[in-house]
């Protein structure tokens, strides 16, 4: 019978478990920090929107020249979308924290959209907005492709404002938005102006049907789109 130094095996196990545990711990802590960062960007945007609304009310009687610029619309929404989309990819779309953040983000988008509508109505600007409805339940095979098209649109028309929504997200404000615009659950759905495109629509087709794009009248900034 040859000897086996069990104590050494145990010692090595302790070291390995510590290494392994450290890696798991660090990874999980960094994910928590990502969630925190997203939440804090969200809070920032929330304050921005509130402030813009207040500014809008205060200046309601005055001229549009203080409002017309995009300065009152939050630019952070772009960075938030990118980070949220990345986190969703990493942690999975069924992660409760991800779902919570998505609800928050969608609400901010809707508020931003409404504020922008009010500004444009008062001041006569004609921003082009895109409402993009996707789903990541696996059934939407064309959502990835639609994401690429929207990214390309955004790059081509920097003034475009893209709002993307997970169609199946459980958020009453979103449900209302969907029912107001009569968006059917045929995804992906892209609404530009009054035109709704269902399924995958090539870039050229969108450009042909929305001449305003070429005219590039929009004065708003753009937001990013999750590739789903």
């Amino acid at each position, binding site marked *: 019978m040859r000897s*086996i130094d069990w104590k050494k095996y145990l010692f090595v196990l302790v070291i390995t478990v510590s290494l392994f545990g450290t890696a798991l711990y660090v990874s999980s802590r960094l994910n928590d920090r990502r969630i925190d960062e997203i939440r804090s960007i969200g809070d920032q945007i929330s304050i921005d929107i509130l402030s813009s609304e207040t500014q809008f009310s205060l200046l309601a009687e005055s001229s549009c020249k203080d409002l017309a610029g995009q300065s009152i619309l939050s630019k952070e929404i772009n960075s938030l979308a990118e980070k949220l989309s990345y986190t969703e990819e990493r942690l999975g779309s069924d992660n409760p924290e991800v779902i919570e953040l998505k609800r928050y983000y969608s609400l901010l988008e809707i508020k931003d959209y409404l504020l922008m509508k009010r500004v444009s109505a008062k001041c006569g600007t004609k921003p082009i907005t895109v409402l993009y409805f996707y789903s990541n339940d696996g059934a939407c095979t064309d959502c990835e492709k639609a994401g690429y098209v929207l990214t390309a649109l955004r790059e081509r028309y920097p003034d475009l404002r893209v709002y993307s929504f997970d169609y199946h997200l459980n958020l009453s404000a979103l449900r209302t938005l969907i029912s107001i615009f009569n968006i059917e659950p045929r995804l992906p759905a892209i609404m530009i102006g009054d035109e709704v495109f269902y399924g995958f629509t090539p870039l050229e087709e969108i450009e042909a049907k929305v001449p305003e794009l070429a005219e590039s009248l929009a004065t708003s900034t753009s937001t990013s789109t999750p590739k789903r």
Partner: protein
Amino acid sequence: MPPFFGELLPHILIFISLYFEVFLLVTFFERREEISKESPEPKAFPTATVIVPCFNEEKTVAGTLDSLLALDYPKDKLAIFAIDDGSTDGTWKVMQAYKDHPQIRLFQKENEGSKYKALNLGLAHATSEIVGCLDADSFVDPKALKRIVLRFENPETMAVTPAIKLHQPKNFIQMMQRAEYSFSVLIRKVFALIGSVYITPGPFSFFRKSVFDTLGPYRHAHHTEDLEIGLRMQTKDYRIDNAHDAYVYTVAPSTLRGLFKQRVRWVHGFLENALDYRQIFFKRRYGNLSMFILPLAVLSVFSALYFAAYTLFYAGLTISEKVTEIRIIGLTLDWPRVATDWFFLNTESLMLLSIALILITFALLVTGKAIGREKLLSRDMLYFMVCYGFVAPWWLLKSVYNTAFSRKTSWR
């Protein structure tokens, strides 16, 4: 990818790899003083025979024999058997220059397709206390035999393996192997320290002659006779030591094709012999070898294949996404965006663990270099760490395939 194959399995396999690497480091540090001290002169010089099987080695055989003649060892105690194994080139002619040398004896035989018969011919004529072999494309350090003999002073030691390094690596393929050999200098030492050497490699391993008298000569053993004899000795509880300062230099394949062929022979030979000797797996009485080293050696083959498939799967996914993107919106000539925000860094546990694994592998390479008294940092380590993972899976795959479908591997 289902969660088991995408998440749980890679974590388990990385855990085992980390465990093995930590085990190597801990064992080395336990015994580092003993490893780093200079070997004294041996007290006695047993008679020794070196068998040099040669098949079409006209270019290197003279160098091999000269290096043996230059060994710092009493001339009357060392015999060299040069065996022409039916070469079809000028090997036999080159060997004639040594025919009158008092230490050298020349043999010639028909080639029978495997090296072990040439070795057995030498064994049949050997009468010395210890016998070793040396491939005719390898060269020994003058001190090598003395350092090996020193290890035989322990009466229980039945065989001693050397530290194998590469002879003048020139191109990229050879440089990559250089680091790999440095790594195996450490592995051989650690395995010897825990009684788990299962390969007594062709270049300059020595045996007590009684090993062959008792256990019989070399066998065909799927063209890896140096592995089979190691395993056979282990089944008899024979002690195999390693002289980490007995340097022997071997010529490595210089082409990918040559390397691939050599490694398929090695790995296929290992798997076949592991099957032949499966009875020594997981038997408490065979110690570390049986409970830890051999199972891990088999697992490592499949683990490497799994990670290769894993990488290919995700690379394929990325490429197909990129292709879809180009098909939808055309080729954009933007620079790929570099994430400047920590937020987008990949800090998944698998990534962090892989980094830990790479760092420890690097530490082991440096340790191997230190044991082999080489420069601690060199280019070849980079080549090895970056490129080895791309080439090794191919010969592993072929070896597993050959083993599963019992294909014969040719010797040359």
